[in-house]
């Protein structure tokens, strides 16, 4: 197992610690890394490393060595006192420097999307909520359906406290039928909801249908209706761009995309794009998503638009042997990042060829890539010119230099995933370990054994650590420092007990707002360091 050189590049270790490393009889590399880590002092389980000795396990004094004279002992004592004084002074300075750095990093991390509250210590359950009837999210709110004596209602739960902020009945009337995502109306955070009833007329009778739905924007704080915009047609998917809502309609052989000011209900811009390909059955279809600030119209024809509505490209479905593939009607696969977007023409729901083309945010071809996008959910923007992909024909993680189009490196990644980009490294997990590779060189920086780690079930990071689920005899939560230190592990809370077999890709650990949550599908719980059992789940504010 490779370990980082002490004091190297993680940003936490300090120079004076690095100097001590060069002393011949220094403690183990692991102990030194620990000394320079922001996690120093945190109780953690360190795996047995053959040959490694802990600081307290130093070799005993040689047997039979001559006893020291009083003068020598005095000299040695003076030296020890002086050394201790120097060490104490250095430690004091180091503490001050470290605290300042931690403050700086905390400030920096606070702006990173997807980063949760620190979990230096083992976490506990702060709240729990049943999600058996379905749930969505909007910023820091969990939106969960629950049954009441008067029918179904949507309850908005603060993910930080577990307190129910408000609830809304299910439509019609003043209710809502579907809520998911957050937007802004005149600077007020709102939850994007839809009321889609009643409907008049039926297709079977040949009568024209009347859509009387509405886009309903609820105040995220109190659930009050901030705005309500009647819709003549149901939007075919939707997304949020800088607080605005983006809607999509199909009109014959064209798709109409509208970016809507959420408060006023007026169009910021409107674009119509032709649908040049049809489904296998001859029909048109289109649905809209927003990915990394780009608007995607998907279907047999795939369209990419900028946030301003400028057309970046259109692609039609390739004639492939798509029989049996449920999503074959999708023209191409498009995935976007802050740096650009990739197009995979023969993806077949990611079961087909993984040869794709990468474009910059202006729609200019940058590179040909082998592999589907393998970027993590959280990134500090490290090495933005390096694109991570995972090819379909081998279990590898590839990096492509977007400035030259050349492949930079390739490392084995069997069935794993990249969890986070941080400090110039990609931190990944592969079922056996959590490890970091340098984004530019591909060199492995560190590796921590985590047998049974399941990155496909999700992960969270606080910017200094990553929290993963692992199954090794039982389900556990395990925290690993982003400097390569195993920190702590604990059994998964009993309230979200999971079965032995979890279908791959089942979301079980992720972030809502700045809180880590985990679920077994029936129950969602909020996690926080040192939290005890919830006194009263989903208590309502007085």
């Amino acid at each position, binding site marked *: 197992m490779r370990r980082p050189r002490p004091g190297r590049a993680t940003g936490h270790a300090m120079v004076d610690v690095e100097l001590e490393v060069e002393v011949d009889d220094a403690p183990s590399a692991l102990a030194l890394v620990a000394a320079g880590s922001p996690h120093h002092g945190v109780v953690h389980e360190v795996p*047995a490393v053959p040959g490694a000795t802990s600081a307290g396990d130093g070799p005993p004094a040689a047997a039979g060595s001559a006893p020291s004279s009083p003068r020598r002992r005095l000299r040695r004592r003076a030296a020890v006192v002086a050394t201790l004084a120097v060490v104490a002074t250095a430690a004091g300075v180091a503490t001050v420097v470290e605290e300042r750095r931690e403050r700086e990093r905390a400030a920096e991390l606070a702006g990173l*999307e997807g980063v949760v509250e620190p979990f230096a210590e083992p976490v506990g359950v702060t709240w729990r909520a049943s999600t*058996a*009837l379905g749930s969505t*999210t909007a*910023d820091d709110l969990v939106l969960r359906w629950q049954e009441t004596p008067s029918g179904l209602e949507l309850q908005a739960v603060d993910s930080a406290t577990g307190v129910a902020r408000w609830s809304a009945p299910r439509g019609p009337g003043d209710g809502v039928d*579907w809520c*998911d*995502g*957050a937007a802004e109306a005149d600077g007020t955070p709102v939850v994007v909801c839809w009321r*889609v009833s009643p*409907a008049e007329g039926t297709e079977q009778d040949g009568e024209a*249908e009347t859509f009387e739905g509405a886009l309903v924007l609820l105040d995220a704080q109190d659930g009050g209706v901030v705005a309500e915009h009647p819709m003549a047609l*149901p*939007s*075919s*998917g939707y997304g*949020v*761009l*800088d*607080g605005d809502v983006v809607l999509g309609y*199909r009109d014959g052989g064209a798709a109409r995309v509208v970016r809507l000011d959420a408060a006023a209900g007026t169009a910021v811009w409107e674009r119509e794009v032709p649908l040049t390909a049809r489904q296998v059955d*001859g*029909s048109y*279809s289109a649905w809209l998503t*927003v990915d*990394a*600030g780009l608007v995607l119209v998907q*279907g047999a024809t795939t369209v990419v638009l900028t*946030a301003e509505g400028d057309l970046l490209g259109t692609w039609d479905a390739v004639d492939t042997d798509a029989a*049996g*593939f*449920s999503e074959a009607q999708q023209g191409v696969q498009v995935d976007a990042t802050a740096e650009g977007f990739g197009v995979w023409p023969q993806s077949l729901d*990611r*079961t087909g060829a993984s040869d794709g083309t990468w474009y910059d945010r202006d729609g200019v071809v940058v590179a040909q890539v082998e592999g589907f*996008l*393998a970027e993590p*959910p959280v990134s500090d923007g490290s090495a933005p010119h390096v694109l991570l992909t995972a090819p*379909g*024909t081998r279990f590898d993680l590839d990096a492509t230099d977007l400035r030259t189009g050349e492949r930079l490196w390739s490392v084995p*990644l069997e*069935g*794993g995933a*990249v969890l986070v980009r941080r400090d110039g490294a990609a931190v990944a997990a592969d*079922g*056996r370990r959590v490890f970091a590779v340098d984004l530019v060189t591909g060199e492995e920086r560190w590796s921590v*054994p985590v*047998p049974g780690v399941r990155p*496909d079930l999700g992960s969270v990071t606080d910017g200094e650590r990553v929290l993963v689920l692992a*199954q*090794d005899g*039982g389900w556990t939560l395990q925290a690993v420092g982003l400097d390569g230190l195993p920190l702590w592990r604990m059994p998964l809370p009993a309230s979200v007990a*999971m*079965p*032995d*077999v979890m*279908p*791959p890709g089942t*979301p079980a650990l*992720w972030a809502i707002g700045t809180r880590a949550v985990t679920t077994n599908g029936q129950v969602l719980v909020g996690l926080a360091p040192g939290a005890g059992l919830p006194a009263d789940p989903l208590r309502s504010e007085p």
Partner: protein
Amino acid sequence: MAARPGDAMVDVVLLDDDEPDAPVLPTALPRVPRQRTRLASGNGPALRTADVGADSPPPAERTPGELARLRRVRRRALAVVGVVAVVGGALGATDAARDAAESRRLSALPGFVAPLGDPLAEAWRLEAPGEVRVAGALLLAADGDELVATDLVTGARAWSAPVDGLAGTGVTGCVGTAGASPVVACVAEDGRVAVLDAAGGTEVPVPADGARVVRLLALDGDLVRLTGEPASLDRVDARTGEARWSVALPPGVAGSEPAVEHGLVTFTGETGAVVDGADGTLLGTFPGSEVRRPDGAAAAVVRATPDGYGVWVAERRRFGDMTGRWFSRDGDELGALRGWLAEPRASDHTEPSVLLTVTDSPVLRAVGPDGALRWAARPELGLPVVRVDGTAVLASADVLRRVDLVDGRTLWSAPLAEGDAVTTVSDGRHLLVLSASVEDGRSLAAVALEDGRTAWRESVPASWELLDAGTSDVVLVRDGPDVLALR
């Protein structure tokens, strides 16, 4: 930007290494509504997609979520039409009869249930708030001091027997034997065994031999008894008590958990072992690791198929996938398997040259008995829930798909909706899926393994839980204090 793990690789990946792990066999996959793993990125969260269908806007009362489902339904409907158009004319009565016979054959195999071609209906309901056990063709439940047996097919009370010291909490296990004269045998905490005639519940007078039985298993028409002092295993005629064979067990084996798998008696625990059920030959013993794992997990895990068995010995700390040793039925070591065995319970064991294992990643690996890799699949393709006709049906959180066991090629795939929970209940032609949604509540559906379409879907009460009772005659469901059977 997509960030879901597993988004990254294609269908089948060939590897050049080989290695195995313990039974992470899919039993009942959980009902886990999909939630967004991805953190909201850029200017807002990626939202659910919906789709406008062919020529007219969807009915106005449909939510985007409903529209997404509608899209899937339409696709499946198209698939149905296509299949009917192509096949319909040619499918004659003979084929239908053959198909029905094949369904019956499969449903008679261990691990499969009775044909699921038509919507299931409640056949009977029984109040049984406590634990229930299936023994042969009977459902056993304790009612006060009596042991009550219910016919699994009819739901009629077959008999109730006040068995001294065996009813209620005194019973530690009951098994039902097969054969022409089946019995129900129960073992009590004090090691005594009571044998009852399965037809009438009358006690069968088996001569007592003083054995203090720890565990009781059924093997065809006989009983296999594990005794602790001295540690031994024997096979006896259920009605006469006549010994077929008896074998002394090496130290540590009697403390492990025994099971009958495909004619072998396997032991999983601190010390693993395999005994040939036919003649009592001790095929092997496998001590667990010297240092017991802190989490209490079994030290040695043994799993068997009709063609062989494997042993996985846990290490206190490990730094890679579990590796198992694979043996022939005769005990010859054939190779090393990387990852745990991933053979589903519902299996017809076709294509025996292919074994399915799963690594921690979890990558599905298809290997030969010698451990040589044939193909491997990315995690998002799913884990096996049914194996039939040389194919495997894999379930992930999002998709159900059927793959060819020889080359891993995908034969069809069908998306799973939010709230869908794939079960392992199959008749070899269908697979049951439990679903839940705000719009439709709870429902039970049968997915046809032929093409992935939904054969039928029925609303069910929200309180239903599928019972994993290992019966082939009915699908058992717990509904509060009641147990009910679906046929």
